[in-house]
């Protein structure tokens, strides 16, 4: 029993926000998330990289918005009532928004519920298993690196 108690302490639990992009569920580490806002008018920036939709203003700040679908070579975004922009806060490069089709829930995943990705693709760093659902965990740094 004493052993069991120790195990509980050692377990690292991370929180992820589960979002839908296309038919796949993705998890984003909650530490990176600054805000989730509804879809709003995005101002196009000419000559920007293809996967940048443009910029929005949020509380007086200008935030670039990336299309994660374009980044992952999926079909282009269609916006509806469920579409959200997730504002990521990144230490060095400032804020960045990514468009997702829907925000579902927040889940707690412990280390043993996460299977490290082997060759799942460069934007995914693991698969989380949660109540019979599979969640692809996004590697935020990879998304950002390429964007830079």
């Amino acid at each position: 029993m004493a052993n069991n108690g120790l195990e509980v302490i050692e377990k690292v639990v991370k929180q992820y926000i589960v979002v839908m992009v296309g038919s796949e569920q993705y998890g984003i580490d909650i530490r990176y998330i600054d805000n989730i806002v509804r879809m709003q008018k995005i101002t196009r920036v000419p000559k920007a990289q293809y996967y940048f939709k443009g910029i929005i203003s949020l509380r007086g700040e200008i935030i670039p918005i990336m299309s994660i679908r374009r980044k992952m070579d999926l079909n282009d975004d269609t916006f509806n009532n469920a579409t959200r922009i997730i504002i990521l806060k990144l230490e060095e490069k400032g804020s960045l928004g990514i468009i997702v089709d829907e925000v579902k829930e927040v889940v707690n995943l412990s280390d043993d519920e996460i299977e490290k990705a082997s060759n799942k693709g460069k934007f995914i760093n693991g698969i989380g298993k949660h109540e019979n659902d599979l969640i692809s965990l996004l590697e935020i740094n990879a998304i950002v690196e390429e964007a830079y």
Partner: protein
Amino acid sequence: MDVSQYLEIFIDETNEHLQTLSDCIMELEKEPENMDVINEIFRAAHSLKGMAGTMGFKRMQHLTHDMENVFQEVRSDKIKVNSAMIDLLFKCLDAIEGYLDNVKESSEEGTEDNELIIKELNDFIAAANGEKPQDDSAKKAEPQMPVAGNAAGRKKYLEFEMDDADRAKLKAEEENGQRIYGMTVYIQKECLLKAARAFLVFKAVEEYGQIIVYNPTSQEIEDEHFECDFSFFIVSEEPFEKVYEAARSVSEIEDVVGEEIKYEVLAAKQEKAEAEAIAVAIMPENNPVSAEKETPAAVAPPKQPSASAGNKKQTVSKPVTNRTVRVDIEKLDALMNQVSELIIAKNSLVSISSTESGGFQNQTFHEQIEGLERITTSLHESVMKVRMVPIESVVNKFPRMIRDLARKLDKKMELYMTGEDTELDRTVVDQIGDPLQHLLRNSADHGLEDNATRLEKGKPEVGSIFLKAFQEGNNVIIEVGDDGNGIDVDAVREKAIERGVITEEQAESMSQKEIINLLFLPSFSMAKKITDISGRGVGLDVVKSNIEALGGDVEVKTDKGEGTTFTVRLPLTLAIIQALMVEIGDEKYAIAIGSISNIEDIPVKDIKYVEAQEVIHLRGKVIPLIRLSQVLDTEPKEDEPTSLTVVIVQKGDSQAGLVVDELMGQQEIVIKPLGKFINNNKIISGATILGDGEVALILDVNTLM
């Protein structure tokens, strides 16, 4: 004493003195006999020494002291100024600057003793005057005398206030035949248990007598409510040396100063100190330090008369600086941000009031809005003005640099500067130094020919380098140039082909200007040999990117055989500008008013073609047209209109016409950066938030042209 509160003043004033010294030494080199200059140098060197001493920077004090000695000799006509001496003096200044940099970083002067320079200085004096060195060592010995105290050890016991009861006690003890000793003990800064050390000192000295007055109070000392020093008066029958040694023998004590004092002297001193305290109360806060420092002079060995002369000068010049306030640049940034927010809020009020549906058709409401607009605009201007500083602080060091370069490169050259009083935003001024320095080095090294070649070509032997600064509209222009050989365009072309930067076919079709612009590409150096001055190929591209980071740009003009001029263009303001809002497709863009010269309606039939490029002919000028809808990839309008709205923009001498769909009017906008993620070839210099919360992009005219 805690001197940290004076640190900022110390840094600023040291900078000022260093600049004065540098200027004067340059002047001295030209007129070695000018007594006024020598006196000025002497004064500045002396103030430097005094300040370093007060702050406890002993190494710095030592160096300035020896430097001062050299000036002393020059002043008394024993040494003649020569270029070796000037070199040495500049080395000293660099060393002092090194100390100052350390102080800025860590509040410590560092551990570099600069013995070599000090030795050179002393050798210099020795060489010029055989008997001088002894004199010198006598002077140096003076600070080591225990009773006189050294730089860190001021006689603070003369400064604190006593109440009448304590005085009466002291007086009574003296009448009883006891001797009064005043002492100040300095504990090492690293000491952890200061109160314990103080206690040990008290215990040690109380074997010989009784402590009458403490400062800080004994309670405060016990609670460790003091910096690194404390003072006390002790009455004793024993000779002073015994008490002194007792205090000294406690470990972790840095220094002890003290002496026997007669009650009358003390009483007089106290009164004098009080009187002075009132007198100095109106002076800036750093002055009491030096004023108090002079106080013990009556008791200590008399100082050189020059000391008071230097001090007098300080007090005389002070009231001028007193009218200014030093403000942290971060506070100004915060203020600027708030003004920006205010302007955005005002803009949204304006946009509400101008919409028909707003329901605010009240006359007074409109008037108030207009009033608000005026106030925010002038508020913005005031804040901008506060942030503006003359570029003087940056360009001042250049004459010295050119002098050094001239010696190093063995070329004769002279720097001519104009417009040093041109003002720029503080942030820009802070960062413009390096690029300008680089351009000047470039001119000195690559630009100017060597003296023999110049004479051959019939040019004056001494090359000239110039730096001109002036304001033009919303920009400040800084031109850096030389009257050297100019850029060899053919050589650049060959080099570019050789390096594979361009192909031969490309080279054929490139204009001279385009070829010269290749110089700004990374790692493209034209220097035939690498010197430590320039030629490593990390040059012009860095200059360009630094200047672009500040929102400016740089251009080159060169005439073969006549010289080269680099023109640096910098925005006057960084955050808020007046802009013309235009519509292209269904998108809104802002163009800085500063770069617009006029707006024209041009019938489509008036468009001409030159080299397949659309141009218009306007008042005798041929102006190329730029179709913004094509550059910005906007949705094209379905029907071609019969006339075009053209915004004529200007950059230096060249003009271009920007074709826009709609004019929306002038507006004050706050520039927000796009962030680091989006890269778009710099056509867009930023974004702004409009009154209705919408985002509009700001076009960078300089890149478009």
